[in-house]
């Protein structure tokens, strides 16, 4: 460690940096990173953050599995994904650091600020594992700096586990010249329900971190921000979805706790009542769907929020909503599966189950926001689709969007989004509950309370009058009308815009949250002279128009997704047995184009460099014609 620091330090200008804060679970990495990320955003930098969270609340400390943390990528330009490797890491112990090293998350010349309390710890066993960890990491050229996090925090608080994070935050503030007054405001907000001295102590810790860094570190980085002339807000995808739900006029959110969707309901629980709405925490996932459907049937704009296992449980109810044509918005914050899978981690594995996970033919709309901004706006869009087409709309976000923090243009709210779903005027004489327009399948919705409209909706096959009917023609008509609505909706969509040239050697097709990483990788490939373009889909059911024609302009088409697909060349994997990524399945069936895929399900967002590598592999097939 450097002892003689020459002052003043000349800050190094960099376009962007990626910082990791890695701690034992329960040591406040999230809070530290959340404030740091928000501060960067508020100072005008582009930001993207990713949480590293164990599924347990506080697993045993000082182990590679106890790692909790956060990655913050921030830069002068807009940041759309978590990038590749971290350039600076703050680690509260050697074991959590080692876990990140083993995941190849740290850049070769990463600056590491590691707590100094371990290398000469009184416990011989701790010293031994420390030495082993350092030895294992010596394969890289990390710049290891020992910092007395624990010791310094102890000067201010009794329990260093509840203070080191703020000391670290102060250090980051100094290294990146952050405005400490912004940090102070956020601390005050976070601890607004605690005694004032909690805020004071935390600010004192931050200042002590600033002072320590100023005294002891010989480097600083400067990441300029470009002035912008629009109002922006910064939040994570679950917050954006929650505020989007309010903006969309939703008044009922029925839910059951499930990671990583729950924080949507936390956000809503805090504020929705002041908008005349409520969060109903149901006894289970099934009941949450039922209450939402009942409320929607009653005329409220209703939402249910869940993740994969909850989607599985709600399946029968979704069929009922589709059959009875009761509008319903379902937010599925996808996580790793199947079964309990990876509760806190990202995956895009619910696409096909969202489209087809149902007995019988049950057409529904499925949309996938591509950014945190779209998490907000998709709620408004979803409500509008659900009500116009009397259908179920599933919004697929994922753990990456849910916890990632990004800034975006402050939405211009529209008072019309708040309108009640339908008027309550008497039902015209002779109007039937399913007065389907035979071309479009659309019909006027009648809800309880409307004079003269009483009828019984049913999950049984029914005719226009909602009478149970087993007649072959009425069953087929109902099927046709429910399906027709999707085609009509599709006619309102426009073909997707491509990123890059309109034709070329390879088109990379993704959906949802992967847009940022895909575009970054495609840009790298284009810069290297390859004719590659990207196409990111938002509408998955119905699919956006023009896909087959777009695909025909490229020599190859490949999907990139965070889900499982068989790898060509693996034992038993042949053209006949190979299972494709979920979007690839869908697009192959939809377009009859021989679409390839590269997918990965590591439980973390895709890295641009991994996508880039696979783009290159696709450009230069090996001797068997199979991509490496």
């Amino acid at each position, binding site marked *: 460690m450097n002892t003689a620091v020459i002052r003043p330090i000349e800050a190094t200008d960099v376009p962007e940096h990626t910082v990791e804060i890695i701690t034992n679970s329960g040591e406040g990495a999230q809070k530290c990173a959340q404030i740091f990320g928000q501060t960067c955003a508020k100072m005008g930098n582009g930001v993207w953050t990713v949480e590293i969270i164990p599924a347990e609340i506080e697993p045993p400390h000082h182990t590679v599995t106890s790692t909790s943390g956060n990655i913050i990528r921030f830069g002068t330009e807009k940041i759309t994904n978590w990038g590749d490797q971290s350039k600076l890491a703050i680690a509260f112990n050697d074991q959590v650091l080692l876990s990140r090293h083993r995941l190849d998350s740290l850049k070769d010349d990463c600056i590491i600020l590691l707590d100094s309390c371990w290398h000469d710890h009184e416990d011989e066993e701790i010293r031994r594992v420390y030495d082993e960890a350092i030895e294992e990491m010596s394969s890289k050229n990390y710049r290891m700096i020992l910092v007395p996090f624990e010791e310094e925090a102890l000067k201010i608080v009794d329990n260093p586990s509840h203070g080191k994070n703020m000391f670290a935050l102060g250090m980051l503030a100094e290294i990146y010249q952050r405005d400490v007054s912004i940090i102070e405001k956020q601390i005050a907000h976070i601890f607004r329900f605690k005694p004032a001295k909690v805020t004071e102590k935390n600010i004192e810790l931050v200042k002590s971190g600033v002072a320590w860094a100023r005294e002891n570190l010989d480097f600083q980085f400067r990441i300029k921000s470009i002035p912008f002339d629009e109002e922006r807000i910064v939040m994570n995808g679950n917050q954006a979805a929650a505020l989007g739900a309010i903006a969309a006029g939703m008044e009922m959110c029925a839910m059951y706790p499930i990671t990583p969707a729950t924080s949507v309901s936390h956000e809503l629980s805090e504020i929705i009542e002041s908008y005349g709405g409520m969060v109903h925490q149901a006894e289970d996932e099934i009941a949450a769907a039922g209450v939402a459907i009942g409320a929607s049937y009653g005329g409220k704009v209703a939402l249910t929020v869940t993740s994969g296992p909850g989607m599985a449980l709600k399946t029968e109810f979704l069929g009922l909503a589709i059959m009875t044509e009761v509008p319903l918005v379902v937010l599925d914050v996808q996580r790793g599966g199947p079964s309990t899978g990876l509760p806190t981690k990202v995956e895009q594995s619910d696409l096909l189950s969202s489209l087809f996970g149902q007995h019988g033919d049950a057409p529904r709309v499925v949309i996938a926001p591509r950014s945190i901004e779209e998490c907000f706006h998709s709620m408004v869009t979803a409500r509008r689709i659900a009500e116009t087409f009397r259908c179920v709309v599933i919004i697929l976000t994922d753990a990456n969007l849910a916890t990632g923090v990004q800034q975006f243009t402050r939405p211009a709210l529209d008072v019309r989004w708040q309108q009640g779903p339908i008027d309550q005027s008497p039902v015209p004489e002779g109007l039937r509950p399913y007065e389907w327009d035979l071309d479009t399948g659309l019909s006027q919705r009648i809800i309880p309370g409307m004079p003269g409209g009483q009828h019984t909706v049913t999950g049984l096959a029914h005719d226009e009058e909602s009478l*149970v009917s087993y007649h072959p023609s009425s069953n087929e008509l109902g099927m046709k009308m429910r399906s027709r609505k999707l085609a009509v909706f599709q006619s309102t969509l426009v073909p997707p815009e491509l990123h890059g040239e309109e034709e070329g050697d390879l088109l990379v097709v993704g959906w949802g949250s992967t847009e940022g990483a895909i575009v970054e990788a495609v840009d790298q490939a284009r810069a290297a002279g390859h004719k590659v373009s990207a196409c990111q889909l938002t509408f998955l059911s119905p699919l956006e128009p023009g896909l087959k024609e777009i695909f025909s302009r490229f020599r190859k088409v490949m999907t990139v997704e965070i889900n499982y697909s068989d790898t060509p060349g693996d034992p038993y994997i042949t053209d006949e047995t190979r299972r494709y990524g979920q979007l690839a399945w869908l697009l192959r069936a939809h377009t009859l184009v021989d679409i390839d895929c590269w997918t990965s399900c590591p439980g973390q967002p895709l890295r641009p460099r991994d996508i880039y590598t696979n783009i290159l592999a696709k450009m230069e097939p090996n001797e068997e014609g199979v991509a490496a």
Partner: protein
Amino acid sequence: MSSIAISLLDLEADNRVCLDAEDYQKRPGKWCAGCGDFGALNAIKRLMAKEQLQPDKTVFVSGIGCSSRFPHYVNAYGFHGIHGRALPIATGVKLARPELDVFVTMGDGDCTSIGAGHWIHATRYNANMVVLMLDNNIYGLTKNQTSPTTPQGHTSMTSPRGAVLPALDPLQATLGVSNASFVAQTADWVPVHLYATLQAAYDHPGFSFVRILQRCPKFTADVFQKNVENPDLTELLVHENGVDVPALEQLFKSRRTHDPLNIDDARALAHRTDMLRLGVFFRDDNRPVYEEIRAVPKVSAEEKVARLNKEFERYAV
């Protein structure tokens, strides 16, 4: 649910005609001859006429099974849902539209088996609705399978050598749930009592759970036969706050005064197997009602937009 019953004055003002019981029947019930569901439907029609419920302000929610066809036959709004899930739908309707009268009809399979979780929690929510649990001790619509309330030893297609477990008692279970507010039992073969019980359930502000014992003429005709033939095997629980029908005094010799506010006695009576007991076991009109405790003031669209814009300040860059 009496609070919103319309007065005669309202009727005059709206120029509405007085509806009689038959006006509340939308179409004839398609149950088997002798099915207990007919008795429940008749009692409901009488109740609706007595209270002059507005068909367009009344919702019947059901699950799946013979009894769940109920909404199709009533002149009101109806939601014929999925198996076991009537209660969540009804809860949603009530939360959305507290001013509507909500009735739930479900069978013993719906309530005590596939939807048992909802039964416990809906009891605890105590939303204001009348719940008719039409208990024929069997799965009828799927043609004769054992249900949780099937008597031990009774044969069915799934228990050809007799049901192996003791029957689940819905009264004991409901009375065990915190915040239960109305628990009653009646029977299809005592129509006067059935009607009076539904009236009490309707008058109770909260979740009124009424178990209606009823015969399935095809599969459980024998189960209640002794009670049907011999009124001495039945004891009526009577109280001014429960059900007390003077007309039944002659028929039922065994009568017990039971204050429905007494939960300990209610539970003790529910556990006794010496006689069949009909009446209101428990009733507490002062329990918190879910849609009331969750009610929040309405907010205008303009105000919502203003508040949300203010909320954005927290996230402003």
